């Protein structure tokens, strides 16, 4: 099944009532619109005949019907829009959650390489594109087919020979749809690549202006963006032009269809088979019928792009389903070693080796280390020797190839995600701050933290004054990536966030890197006065950090 089909199936499965209700309601305006023209055509013809022959004609039923259909068409259109949009938004919300779940699962299963910023960007914009699947593809297609079928039945009831014209038209439209579908796939790929190149090169141009001015020249870099732009415009034109040709071709097919119907009805009226009124009704319905196809044009011309977006989203959603997110799973059997008195190491590495999958060389080889309760150990070594790998292993973000890592005597991998997170807090060089309020950023660490707790944590991190000065206080919204706070302030907010946890083990990953000495010492002082009797694993290369440790563990250079 194509990705779009899968997305449609997903939406049907997600909320079948809303899915079918939207389609059912969409039939109302389509049918009412056709019927309005048909009845009107029949009505004036009948009137004309009655006027000429002075036969009695009940005019009140048809004229009331005409007004009723006019109102049904209007109300139906409104209802259709409301119901289909509501169904779509519900589904998109579900998709977003699903995509987050998929990524969370991948992270929990230890996927090493997190996706690049660009692909995450694309993924989230894909979701927005997917509203077209139901609104512009599923609903209009089903309505066009359904209404087409009803018109077929009506034609067949009147005279089966009328079907010839309709069949011709349907065949023409279907062959054009098939042609359009095959044509744009390559252009859609180039369109995406063009968009991506335009974005990446503009980012490079703006972010690297100093470097480009000296090396290579700004004008040349701007020229490269324009090359991407040209490719993008070419792909766009190609897609737009084939959509334009499709529109023109279906329009022409509609015109030919009308001409055929004109001839057919004329012949059939004289053949005696078809009443004059019905003939005019058939003609008027035929005028409006091609509109059902033109409702499909926007959805069809964007089809290849939607297809690509659907395929990516689908892959992600499947990842969400295959992994079961056992965040709340608790270790079934905690080895009794965990409770063998006070002399168990908080953290112990026992002959641990680690290598990235597929890599020739291992990053760690038979590494031993242990941390006693309350102890602070500095892990030193030159960059690239695997310090960060040790931190990732200890935090349970990666699993060793061989050997065992124990936290309070229990293997890290078996502790269960939730328990592990309660026991270990990691403070990184650059804390990730969310584009949200200060309070929301703090509550990531502890959703139950009260305002007082948060102010206390900020106080400890020496940030309370700064946040207090802002009129919105804890409700101050941080810009993307902590925008609005200086580098040091961001670090302090990260610290405050960590202070809302009470772990048994802290992992500090180059916590004061890039801070000036004064700030670094202040941050370190505050941390050590707060940490209490928890153990600390500190990845460091600055002497002032290393000096705070009880002892050092030097990682040998593996290269």
């Amino acid at each position, binding site marked *: 099944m194509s990705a779009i089909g899968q997305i449609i199936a997903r939406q049907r499965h997600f909320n079948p009532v809303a899915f079918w209700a939207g389609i059912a309601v969409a039939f109302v305006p389509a049918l009412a619109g056709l019927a309005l023209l048909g009845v009107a055509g029949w009505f004036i013809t009948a009137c004309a005949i009655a006027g000429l022959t002075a036969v009695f004609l009940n005019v009140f039923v048809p004229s009331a019907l005409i007004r009723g259909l006019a109102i049904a068409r209007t109300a139906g259109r409104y209802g259709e829009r409301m119901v289909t*949009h509501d169904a779509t938004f519900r589904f998109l919300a579900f998709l977003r959650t699903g995509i987050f779940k998929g990524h969370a699962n991948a992270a929990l299963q230890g996927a090493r390489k997190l996706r*690049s910023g660009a692909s995450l960007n694309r993924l989230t914009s894909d979701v927005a594109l997917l509203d077209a699947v139901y609104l512009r593809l599923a609903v209009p297609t089903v309505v066009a087919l359904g209404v087409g079928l009803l018109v077929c039945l009506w034609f067949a009831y009147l005279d089966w020979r009328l079907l010839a014209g309709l069949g011709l038209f349907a065949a023409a439209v279907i062959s054009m749809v098939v042609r359009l579908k095959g044509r744009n796939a390559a252009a859609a790929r180039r369109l995406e690549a063009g968009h991506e190149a335009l*974005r990446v090169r503009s980012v490079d141009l*703006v972010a690297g202006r100093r470097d480009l*001015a000296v090396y290579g020249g700004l004008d040349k870099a701007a020229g490269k963006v324009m090359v991407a732009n040209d490719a993008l415009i070419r792909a766009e034109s190609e897609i737009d032009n084939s959509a334009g040709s499709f529109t023109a071709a279906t329009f022409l097919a509609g015109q030919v269809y009308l001409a055929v119907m004109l001839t057919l009805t*004329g012949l059939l009226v004289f053949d005696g088979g078809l009443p004059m009124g019905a003939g005019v009704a058939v003609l008027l319905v035929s005028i409006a019928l091609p509109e059902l196809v033109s409702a499909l044009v926007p959805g069809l011309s964007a089809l290849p792009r939607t297809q690509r977006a659907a395929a990516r989203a689908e892959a992600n959603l499947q990842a969400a389903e295959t992994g079961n997110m056992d965040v709340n799973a608790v270790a079934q059997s905690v080895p009794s070693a965990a409770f063998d008195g006070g002399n168990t190491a908080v953290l112990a590495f026992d002959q641990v080796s680690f290598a990235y999958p597929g890599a020739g060389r291992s990053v760690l080889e038979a590494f031993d280390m242990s941390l006693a309760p309350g102890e602070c150990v500095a892990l030193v070594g030159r960059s690239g020797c695997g310090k960060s790998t040790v931190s990732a292993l200890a935090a349970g973000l990666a699993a060793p190839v061989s050997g065992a890592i124990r936290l309070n005597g229990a293997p890290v991998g078996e502790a269960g995600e939730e328990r592990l997170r309660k026991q270990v807090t990691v403070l990184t060089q650059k804390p990730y701050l969310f584009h949200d*309020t200060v309070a929301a950023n703090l509550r990531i660490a502890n959703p139950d933290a009260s305002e007082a707790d948060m102010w206390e944590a900020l106080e400890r991190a020496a940030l309370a004054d700064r946040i207090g000065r802002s009129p919105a206080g804890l*409700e101050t919204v941080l810009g993307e990536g902590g925008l609005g706070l200086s580098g040091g302030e961001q670090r302090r907010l990260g610290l405050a966030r960590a202070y809302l946890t009470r772990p048994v083990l802290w992992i500090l990953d180059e916590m004061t890197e*890039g801070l000036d000495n004064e700030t670094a010492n202040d941050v370190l002082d505050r941390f050590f006065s707060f940490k209490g009797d928890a153990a600390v694993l500190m990845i460091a290369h600055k002497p002032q950090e290393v000096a705070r440790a009880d002892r050092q563990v030097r990682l040998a250079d593996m290269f």
Partner: protein
Amino acid sequence: MRIARRVIAAGRHRGRRIKLVELTADDRGQGALEGAAEEARTRKPAPADLLLGNERAALSRAGLLLCLSDLLWIGQAALLAFCAASMLSAFMAEDTAVLPLLFLAASAFAFVLIGGARALCQHKAGQMARRVAATVKIRKRGEFLASIARVSPASGMPGSGQMAAYLSEQIDALGPYLTHFMPQQQRLKIVPLAIVLTVLPISWLASLILMVTGPVIPLFMALVGMRAKAASEAQQEELARMSGMLLDRLRGLVTLRLFGALSNTERDIETAGERFRNGTMNVLKIAFLSSTVLELFSALGIAFVAVYVGFSLLGDLSAGTWWGALSFGPGLFILLLAPEFFAPLRAYAAAYHDRAAGLAALSKLDALDRSLTEMAAVNRSDTAVRGTDPAAVQRPGLAQTAPVLRQAPLIDISRLQVGAQSARRLASVTFTARAGEAVILRGRSGSGKTTLIDCLLGFVDADGGHILINGFPLSDFDPAGWRRSVAWIGQSPALFHGSIRSNLELANETASGADLENALALAGASGFVSRLPKGLNTVIGEEGFGLSVGEGRRLALARAALRTDAPVLLADEPTAGLDDDTAQDVIAGLERLAEGRTVLLATHDPRVLRLSWRQIELTAGAREASA
């Protein structure tokens, strides 16, 4: 520190947040842009400025072609009505001979011919409008890129992501505005009027029905639309925030995991989605109402015309015509024209969203354009250096004729200052670096080290004093040529999306393989580059291989080393944020690069200050540091 308080958006669902207040960084470019955007909101953007004369003409021709297509329908409708009327009279007379097959076939053929002409008109109109949109987009992007390249690299600019969004999405939003909306304006002006005028001679009453229902529509739509517009703008922001939130949470996934906040966040995303849906549906409730009004009037218009024609034909109603009773043919003709009277209105309303998006993009682009122009003006006041430079005044004949540098030059800086009295970025600096001499500029952050280097690169113009290179004012050198004779390492060097090789070759296009090897070896980068999956051809940058800070710095050093013929070396905090081992490698590389060059190195790193080079302390006034 001053906290800039900015109200980004007011009004939030359920009054959860009354105001969104954002703390802004001390980012002048951002501020300038915001200010300009504020101004643009009050100033109405002028779409006319967007188009050149011939483009406006092309769009207008496209609109006229659409009108022509609609007007041809009048002919087709007449043909249909005539055929039906002939059918009726033949039907009444029960005489097939009145209507031979040939007549029907000929009519059908004529109908298809006109239909073909209409298809051609529509297709041509679409092509013309698309061509205009493409050229406008190309031109706009070209203009912006030229402005970006013109602005000094030292001036603040909005974030690169934001600028990329301007260059791609905002400019893209102009496309549908030009292709879908603009041609519809003409259609709206001409077609309904033409149809009313066509109906008028046949029946003034039918014409009146159309005339009454037609103009009422825009009025109602405007009433409903005004409320919808404000609401939908707020909702657009909410949508952006909504996808922004998902993106943000995905980027911070590891943090969320480390704090055990994954399931809570999942719930947050769910509630945010629900809130967004509710908000959007509230907006759409009103927005759809405006198109429903249109729908209602067009449906009722058709119904009234049908009933009026029907009753006239019955003979119950004889009013509305100029003479005699309405007959079947003309009656059907009127009925066929009625939907077409409303069609341009419906198309206009359908394209209205494209108009809103296009105009919004236009006003944003307008604001950016003006702030870029301002920035370019501020940093390219060419008189700044030369005007206050006595040396230049003494050598009027030599302006712009400074020779190309081949050997390490003498750099003479005297009383150089940048920034106004109240906000000095660099306070009067005087010193001389002899040809081939290496000088360290030291000083605390904020003492103007980077500003001085920026002056030397020509990114910032001095507000006083002068820089002489071999006795020639810096402003006499062609900026690009001067920069080509400089090897430079910045404090946060940028590497670009592409292979390592293409990044290095930016410094020297004609570098041989051996040159590359030497440069990498000098920078201590040979080792890690050879370990990368594809060596020199490994793609780095966005979506490429992530490099550590140290690795990036080594590559930047290699890039500088590739400028083998550059007689000047400028370095700005080349060891910032590096661990000791990497820093030692970088310092050793710099020492080798310094040979045979005039060197200015700005730093406050004690590891670099150990070098035996002459040191200049940058403070309120520069002076020789005690050695």
